[in-house]
């Protein structure tokens, strides 16, 4: 049960070593930097040191309580990330798959719209553009 913010990349297998021991179901989600336009060089992610760690922990604890998780892990990177690099992961462990899937989905919806991260796309030409929040991400939160 932990939340972490870091600039370094991560290895999913290493993160999952010993995770959720005794659980009947483990679900993981990994977000990866993608290039929708064919013109992006990297993503820069800014965050709010102090608040970020607290918010991620709060959301993890809320998910654990709501879905009866036996373990959870949230890892989110910040700084400059190249296309194809992993941005973040969540892992959830529960007795049954339904709770583990739902908790991972719940955590992603919260992280998208309520964790203090801001993405900026850096083009191959060097131009930077802040990524706008999506109404669909905000709408997704209302499911919970």
């Amino acid at each position, binding site marked *: 049960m932990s939340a972490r913010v870091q600039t370094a990349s991560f290895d999913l297998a290493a993160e999952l070593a010993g995770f959720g021991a005794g659980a009947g179901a483990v679900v993981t989600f990994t977000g990866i930097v993608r290039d929708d336009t064919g013109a992006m060089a990297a993503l820069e992610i800014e965050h709010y040191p102090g608040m970020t760690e607290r918010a991620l922990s709060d959301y993890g604890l809320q998910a654990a309580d709501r879905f009866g998780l036996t373990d959870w892990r949230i890892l989110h990177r910040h700084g400059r990330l190249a296309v194809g690099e992993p941005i973040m992961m969540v892992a959830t462990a529960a007795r049954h798959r339904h709770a583990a899937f739902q908790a991972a989905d719940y955590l992603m919806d919260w992280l998208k719209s309520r964790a203090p991260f801001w993405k900026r796309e850096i083009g191959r030409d060097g131009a930077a553009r802040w990524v706008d929040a999506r109404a669909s991400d*905000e709408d997704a939160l209302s499911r919970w």
Partner: protein
Amino acid sequence: MTLEVLYFAWLRERIGQPRERIDTAAETVRDLIADLSSRDDWHAAAFADLTAIRCAVDQQLADLDASLSGAREVAFFPPMTGG
């Protein structure tokens, strides 16, 4: 009251600094925005569209009508784009 005010993403860029310490009589976040906006054109421009502004009081998400009573740190930023 002295507050530490933090800015992130394009708000930080428009205001031209990541943080500042200010003396204010503001009682709510909305009052604080009005106070900051009256100080110079950069603040006024950054806060021109309140629908694009989110905030946290002492590192907890808050709405614009939140009280600043006892607050030490207020952060302003655009809608978050994590995940």
